[in-house]
């Protein structure tokens, strides 16, 4: 397994655990209403997603430092994975917009907490999609050339 491939697999697994942990904390602490009223709750969520993001970024930053372990083939796959990242972010945003608009249409407003949630979610999904895109890229290149 190539170093980038290994890091993408780790990144994908980390992303799944990261999102699951954040959802578990969010729901166990009382969800959207508590998030609005409790500053400590907001700080906890902020810490979780910023911390998780930094760990994720550190994973990919370590690859580029070692030139011999990140070659042109890896770069090609990584460039192609950006498309998966973009598509995942786009579809996530569309789903959120439609879902929230329909759910809160009768109230005429959407709780501000969803600004947080959408941003974190799209960021996490985009990162995981990049990892998935890298893994799929290696699989396709190994299969087809």
């Amino acid at each position: 397994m190539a170093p980038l491939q290994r890091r993408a697999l780790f990144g994908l697994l980390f992303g799944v655990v990261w999102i699951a942990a954040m959802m578990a904390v969010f729901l166990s602490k009382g969800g959207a209403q508590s998030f609005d009223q409790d500053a400590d709750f907001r700080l906890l969520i902020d810490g979780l997603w910023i911390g998780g993001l930094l760990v994720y970024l550190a994973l990919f930053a370590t690859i580029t430092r070692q030139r011999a372990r990140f070659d042109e083939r890896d770069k090609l796959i990584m460039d192609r994975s950006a498309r998966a990242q973009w598509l995942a972010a786009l579809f996530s945003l569309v789903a959120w917009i439609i879902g929230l608009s329909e759910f809160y249409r009768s109230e005429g407003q959407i709780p501000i907490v969803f600004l947080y949630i959408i941003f974190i979610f799209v960021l996490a999904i985009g990162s995981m999609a990049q990892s998935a895109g890298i893994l799929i890229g290696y699989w396709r290149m190994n299969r087809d050339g």
Partner: protein
Amino acid sequence: MTQQRLADRAGCTRQTIIAVEQGKYVPSLELAFRIAKALGVPVEEVFQYEDP
């Protein structure tokens, strides 16, 4: 020469060398020259172009 040693000399990963050997990846001109140099032979001895 092992694949890893060739990869180290050519400045790429072992997986790339494997992919090149299996014909599943076409290296750039730069990498092709580096591989040939690592093997100590002219690039034409390592890579040949075949009409599709």
